[in-house]
């Protein structure tokens, strides 16, 4: 499977080829550009936006290893796609909580953290999140690797109170890197 994500004439466009290297049958998805919000594509392992989640920024993905940062459990095909609304990256805001249900010690994030620990955050497990503005990707390992969870301010009222709400593939509270989704 190959992907190409672009923007033209007021529309977000994604082309998906069945085979690697831009070969095979292809399908085109489009979404209108909002005048207010920026958008990227979200790709999901299974139908109905279930399974592993991947943010697909504009560019080319010539094979599954171009989008899959989970080398232990790679998603070699993506089955469902939808736009993910984000905001100007300087306006993105997220609160991270050590306990479930948005309780406990918290930290305010407005920047990218390829390693939370390298910036002084204790431990490797987080309890919950609240997204104030924009959209964010939380990753199990540093460097934005392994299982990823897309958190959006316009879903769940921005609250992600337990890992069960982070995605159908989530099975641990472990999150070690976080970054803003931006265009």
């Amino acid at each position, binding site marked *: 499977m190959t992907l190409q*994500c672009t923007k033209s004439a007021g529309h977000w466009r994604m082309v998906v080829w069945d085979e690697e290297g831009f070969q095979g049958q292809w399908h085109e998805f489009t979404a209108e550009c909002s005048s207010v919000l920026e958008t990227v594509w979200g790709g999901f392992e299974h139908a109905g936006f279930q399974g592993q989640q991947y943010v697909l920024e504009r560019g080319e993905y010539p094979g599954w290893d171009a989008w899959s940062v989970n080398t232990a459990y790679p998603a070699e095909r993506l089955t469902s796609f939808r736009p993910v609304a984000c905001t100007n990256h300087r306006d993105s805001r997220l609160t991270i909580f050590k306990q479930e249900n948005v309780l406990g010690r918290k930290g305010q994030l407005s920047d990218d953290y390829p390693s939370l620990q390298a910036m002084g955050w204790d431990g490797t497990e987080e309890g919950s999140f609240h997204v104030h503005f924009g959209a964010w990707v939380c990753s199990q390992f540093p460097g934005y690797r392994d299982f990823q969870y897309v958190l959006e301010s316009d879903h769940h009222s921005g609250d992600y109170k337990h890992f069960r709400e982070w995605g159908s593939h989530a099975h641990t509270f472990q999150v070690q890197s976080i970054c803003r989704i931006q265009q």
Partner: protein
Amino acid sequence: MAAQLSAPEQAAASKSHGGLGGSYEVTVYELENFQGKRCELSAECPNLTDSLLEKVGSIQVESGPWLAFVCRAFRGEQFVLEKRDYPCWDAWSSSRRHNDILLSLRPLHIDIPDHKLYLFESPAFSGRKMEIMDDDVPSLWAHGFQDCVASAHAITGTWVGYEFPGYRGSQYMFERGEYCRWNEWDANQPQLQSVCLIRDQKWHKWGCFLSS
């Protein structure tokens, strides 16, 4: 929770090995999950086999960041290792192939306080240019730079370039200096699609978390 870095604090951090008050410590294990023979490093190691490790199964970074290479003498595919535990090879590698071969490591020097990187579509700093300052760019295409990236000049800051968007694929380190052609950052082709800054609280006070 986030403290701002003042100008005197920024000026105080040096660019020398480890920086002011900065130390580097990493432990490399032959087997996964921190088992088997181990080797502790606090300085660069151009040949890990000299330490009698046949392969690398897991890594613990106590103080970093470090840059690991699949070849001796700091050549070949490279991986940034932040402060944390890496229990198996796929915790540090996005390569399709099973990759437990790491043959050299060195501390990654962080350049501060400003961060500026120029990317060029042609070798020798020619052709279209893209200037990146003080922020990460998950998609060069989104900034209209869909061409090849054939040369680069890291003016200040320490940057990681990635083969694909969203900080995915092979990683290439850009420490302060000039890179006249893509082979100088150990790439096989002139392709970069995302770029981000290295951040560590030893040098980046803005955004770091204070102990409660």
